[in-house]
């Protein structure tokens, strides 16, 4: 706009920049520095800490390879399931009279404190099918109970009575069980943000599509999804990053045992339990690097939005 002084935008940004600088940028820079130092942050060790992550010399204490693989699983499976469910619920619930009730049911898990949620999920996944809801459901349907949080097998080995284990490692029963808890907690988030976007679509557009002869299915794929895509990207980006830095859930449910470690839990273990700040910092830096491709995608999208509005 004309007549706006060059420093006006910076004035508007100043509070955010200051807060982010102190609470996020400074720690990141500090971590980056420590990732090149030894475990007490005294001596320079070059890339040794990164080599540790790549070589995985102590797979029993801190299995870096499995943590990296698990991260991939989290950010794909967790994101894909949560976004699709959130979108489906947002769209479907808008068509029934009990929309508010339906949405509340999906939202409530978000309001439960994490500690309480972990208590109840440990009961849900309890092996004893007299106590564990999941196993009670499985056995009453004629299946075999399983140790949901310990079983590192691929799901089909369980379904088909120990058939060949063909899926790649991170698709383990216990990992999937953890992802389902994450999905349970975050679908409400996806649903709410997506509903807000959905309510922004003018009814005239949908009516125009209907008049043009589109059925509901075509409207969903050809009208709603394209119009919603900016919102979907916001939700997906947030969830990818949530999946990427997933810590609390894994830490409380399994403590990273049974090959469920992710990079964030391993970072915590290295830095605060094992006491190797160098490796911990290097793991944290690896976590930060994952965000680069996401940024490249976003940059394109924002340029596109600029041009089209």
């Amino acid at each position, binding site marked *: *706009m*004309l*007549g*706006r002084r060059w420093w006006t935008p910076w004035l508007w940004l100043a509070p955010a920049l200051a807060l982010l600088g102190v609470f996020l940028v400074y720690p990141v820079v500090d971590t980056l520095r420590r990732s090149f130092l030894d475990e007490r942050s005294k001596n320079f060790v070059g890339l040794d800490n990164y080599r540790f992550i790549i070589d995985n010399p102590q797979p029993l204490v801190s299995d870096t390879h499995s943590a990296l693989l698990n991260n991939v699983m989290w950010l794909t499976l967790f994101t894909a399931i949560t976004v699709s469910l959130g979108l489906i619920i947002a769209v479907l619930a808008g068509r029934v009279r009990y929309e508010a009730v339906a949405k509340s049911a999906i939202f409530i898990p978000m309001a439960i404190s994490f500690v309480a949620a972990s208590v109840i999920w440990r009961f849900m996944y309890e092996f004893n099918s007299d106590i564990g809801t999941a196993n009670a459901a499985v056995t009453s349907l004629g299946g075999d109970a399983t140790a949901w949080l310990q079983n590192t097998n691929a799901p089909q080995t369980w379904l088909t009575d120990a058939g060949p284990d063909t899926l790649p490692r991170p698709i383990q029963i216990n990992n999937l069980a953890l992802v389902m808890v994450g999905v349970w907690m975050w679908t409400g988030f996806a649903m709410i943000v997506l509903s807000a976007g959905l309510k922004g679509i003018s009814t005239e557009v949908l009516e125009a599509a209907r008049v043009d002869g589109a059925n509901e299915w075509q409207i969903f794929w050809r009208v709603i999804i394209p119009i919603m895509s900016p919102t979907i990207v916001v939700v997906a980006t947030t969830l990818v990053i949530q999946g990427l830095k997933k810590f609390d859930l894994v830490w409380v449910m399994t403590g990273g045992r049974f090959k469920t470690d992710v990079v964030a839990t391993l970072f915590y273990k290295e830095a605060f339990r094992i006491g190797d700040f160098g490796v911990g910092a290097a793991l944290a830096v690896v976590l930060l690097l994952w965000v680069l491709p996401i940024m490249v995608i976003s940059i394109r999208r924002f340029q596109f939005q600029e041009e089209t509005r």
Partner: protein
Amino acid sequence: MARVNFDHVTKRFDNVVAVNDFSLEIPDREFLALVGPSGCGKSTTLRLLAGLEEISEGDIYIGDRLVNNVAAKDRDIAMVFQSYALYPHMSVYDNMAFGLSLRKLPKEDIGHRVHEAAQILGIEDLLKRKPRQLSGGQRQRVALGRAIVRDPAAFLLDEPLSNLDAKLRVQTRAELSKLHQRLGATFIYVTHDQVEAMTMATRIAVMNEGLLQQVGAPQELYDWPDNVFVAGFIGSPSMNFFEAKVAGSQEGMHLDTGIFRVPVPASRVNDLLSYLGKEIIFGIRPENICDPECQPASADAAPVTAQVDVTELMGSEVFLHLVAGGKLFMARVDPRTRARPGQEIRVEFDMGHMHAFDPQTEEAIRSKEKGQPSRGQAG
């Protein structure tokens, strides 16, 4: 007060030149219509004046003040957007009161002015409604009302009628004209509908591809178009053009299109003298082609035979789509005509109203003393 002056204004977006070396002076209280085809830079010109876009080159004055770097809010200008841009979360009253309350006017004053504007526009009953509860025409009035209450030095209107049905459009057109007289403010009105421009404007500025083509009173533009573009743009249906050779001599000059030959009337011979033996573009408006059977011939009438392709009955007149020698052209004749599709008929060109253009420059060929409308400056 609100004289507006564009002085060699250019606006570039990356690689598009939206407005190109645009110079125009708009005197106070004028109703100027800015017309041109879609994408020619009309909205951009308006937005430059409003202060919504930065000028790449040149100067804009409002009154005597150079406003190149004056913020939109300090220009004392109101704009009615192509999309109305009503604030969806405010009632009609609040939409109209918004600008006034920002200027810290006393409450009673605001109420008074809003009610007065609402009365002028006949929307007093709607003041409590939200924009989404209004019809298109009502929204358009609210958008106008929002501009009126501000009592600005100039009104900028960007195709404000494009969303209304034909009847409402005609009605609103008349109301806008009345409003202009009543308010005594400068109106700059963007449209691509030349009927709107012809009926309301005191002057029309024609733009094409960012360039100002011609400015003048509606009749002036119609009678004396400066170039082929303006000639074709103003008037409906648009002017017929033929490539023609100027033949004969000063005494018996005629135009030869290869399909027909028509004499040049004595009054135009001087203009075309220097083109003798050369090609020109010959233009004639459909309303200057008539069916001699139902209309007395004029002094300069020249007969031409053509095949009738289509007839369009418009009620008070008939549009004939004619073909002669593979060339399509239109005539606008009396509805009593007996011409029917497929027939061969004889029409008469009223050569007293002929137009001639240079084929290279596309400029009108016209002698200086003809009272040529000035270009770019207030006539």
